[in-house]
């Protein structure tokens, strides 16, 4: 068997083994070790002199000294603290009374709360669960359509992995070796477009068919103007300022992503203190959860970087490249094909694995097809939104089902999420047709003129 063939066996075997459900990080390390030993094998050499051992530890140290990845635990910590900062109820309540004159006001308030909370915490499961407990029953009580309400919570909760400062984009930047700052700038406009689509859709449907979103009873909307301003000032603005300053510091080059994340984490502790939620118990929870999630992501990186080196060394990467080149694809076809593969990978895998393990396979091809890696990254970030809401995996739908009243069926939640999936696809098409939507802002901010 030639080396490239061994490389393909390595990839095939890897996919088979992870389907057996073993922790992926260690599967990667073990496979890289075994196949790497073969790749580096020199006849007559001492058993332990094989260079794969050096490769493994060097990759491990590369992960520990990666400055982009330093932002991961800090953003996670900020997210876990905000999640526990007693902020969600106030935020939802304030946006709800502020949006009282908009058709479908509760659904719009839910979307906005989800978008903001998800942006600040970046944890899809937590946002969908908490909003499933808070906003979803509120919408059902007000007589809102079940499907629409479910779709709003699921789709809104996923926005956090797209809208900066999202951890997904940090992880993509570390994987692709590109600037996290430019990637954040590139995600701004598509993020707002997608959120805008969602809001427009909800308002539009409520306007065309008022029966879907009945008007709230008078006593609930009858809030004096002063009260609206007061609740906005105490709940919406502090969080908005926090997010805006973290993002602003990054986008205007005042701080690196990890510096901004650290300042954001500090600010979130202060915010939690101001809302009377800061205590040793919540701090402990946030600290431990941060540690576990960080370990999960970073060990995946150790495995993936070692695996990718061995895979390339064996020539497996070359086989894949020749395969794609042999298909004689136009850049458009290439993009559609790769995005479709990533969409399919979203069924068995979560975005962490897709980005850390599979995206690197496509990255070297981007230059051949003249696709900007930043542009590609935004498409991937949009694409992974769909994985959370498309059956059979649809994590977001299952989270909502887990906390929803018993009469709400899973298929209602799926059906409710479907229009939002179409909007994501529409947004991807727009981003593709008008590359300026992603590339203009980073170019405007960071090209010296």
């Amino acid at each position, binding site marked *: 068997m030639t080396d490239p063939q061994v490389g393909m066996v390595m990839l095939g075997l890897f996919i088979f083994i992870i389907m057996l459900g073993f922790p992926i990080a260690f599967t990667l390390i073990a496979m890289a070790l075994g196949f790497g030993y073969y790749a580096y094998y020199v006849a007559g050499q001492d058993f332990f002199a094989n260079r794969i051992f050096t490769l493994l530890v060097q990759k491990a140290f590369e992960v520990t000294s990666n400055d982009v990845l330093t932002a991961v635990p800090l953003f996670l910590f900020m997210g876990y603290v905000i999640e526990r900062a007693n902020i969600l109820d106030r935020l939802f309540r304030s946006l709800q009374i502020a949006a009282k004159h908009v058709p479908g006001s509760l659904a719009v308030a839910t979307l906005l709360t989800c978008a903001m909370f998800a942006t600040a915490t970046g944890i899809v499961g937590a946002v969908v669960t908490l909003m499933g407990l808070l906003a979803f029953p509120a919408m059902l009580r007000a007589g809102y359509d079940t499907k629409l309400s479910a779709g709003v919570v699921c789709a809104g909760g996923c926005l956090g992995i797209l809208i900066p400062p999202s951890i997904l984009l940090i992880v993509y930047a570390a994987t692709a070796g590109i600037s996290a700052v430019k990637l954040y700038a590139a995600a701004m406009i598509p993020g707002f477009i997608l959120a805008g689509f969602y809001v427009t859709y909800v308002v539009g449907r409520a306007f065309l068919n008022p029966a879907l979103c009945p008007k709230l009873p008078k006593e609930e909307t009858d809030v004096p103007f002063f009260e609206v301003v007061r609740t906005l000032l105490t709940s919406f603005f502090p969080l908005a300022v926090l997010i805006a300053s973290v993002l602003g510091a990054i986008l205007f080059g005042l701080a690196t992503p990890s510096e901004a994340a650290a300042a954001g984490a500090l600010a979130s502790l202060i915010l939690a203190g101001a809302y009377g939620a800061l205590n040793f118990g919540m701090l402990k929870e946030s600290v431990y959860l941060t*540690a576990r999630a960080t370990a999960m992501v970073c060990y995946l990186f150790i495995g993936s970087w070692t695996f990718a080196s061995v895979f390339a060394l064996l020539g497996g990467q070359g086989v894949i490249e020749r395969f794609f080149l042999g298909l004689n694809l136009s850049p458009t076809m290439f993009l559609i094909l790769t995005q479709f593969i990533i969409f399919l990978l979203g069924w068995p895998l979560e975005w962490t694995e897709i980005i850390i393990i599979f995206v690197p396979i496509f990255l070297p091809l981007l230059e051949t097809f003249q696709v900007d890696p930043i542009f590609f990254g935004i498409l991937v970030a949009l694409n992974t939104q769909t994985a959370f809401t498309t059956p059979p995996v649809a994590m977001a739908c299952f989270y909502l089902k887990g906390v929803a009243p018993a009469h709400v069926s899973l298929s209602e939640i799926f059906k409710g999420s479907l229009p939002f999936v179409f909007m994501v696809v529409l947004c991807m098409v727009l981003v593709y047709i008008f590359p300026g939507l992603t590339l203009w802002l980073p170019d405007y901010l960071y090209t010296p003129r």
Partner: protein
Amino acid sequence: MTRFLFFIDSLSSWVGKSFAWLILVLTFGVSYEVFVRYVLGAPTTWAFDISYITYGALFLMTGAYGLSRNSHVRADVLYRFWRPRTQATMDLVLYILFFLPAVAAFIYSGWNYAAMSVRFREVSIFSPAGIPVFPLKMLIPVTGVLLLLQGLAEIIRCVLCIRSNQWPQRFHDVEEIESAVLREKQRLEREQAQPGPRGINK
């Protein structure tokens, strides 16, 4: 066997949780750098070194803790539908075939790497401040040993599960909000479905 399992679980948790607090050092340390740079106009030379060393130590040393909490991600599309006994058998085979050799190699290569670094009293290359980096490198073999022990504990867990077709309970620990809420809800539903001995609805 169970006592060994509990001992390793608590060891990993204890080490992991201690190192987890480094996130506060990271938060305050990096914020301090931002503060002195913009407010006092006097940036430090060492902040970047300290930040990556703190972050590196944080994630390396919490790996075994993560394993003891089953928080390393799996592709569980098929796995979650299997009986516990099937899950445990598959895990057992792969722990022995994959995990143990991988971690052994990690310890071996990490040891050589760290020993060399300690011999030179190696300092960080990213700044002129001369921050020692060998303690971080020393943590690589240490974390390998912790992972190895936790791997043995997981193997015991698999064996216990194969015997009884039921996963032994893990220590209570903080959970992600979604799983904590879901479990609480299921508990309430179970209680409602089967009224306790006092019989609410006689």
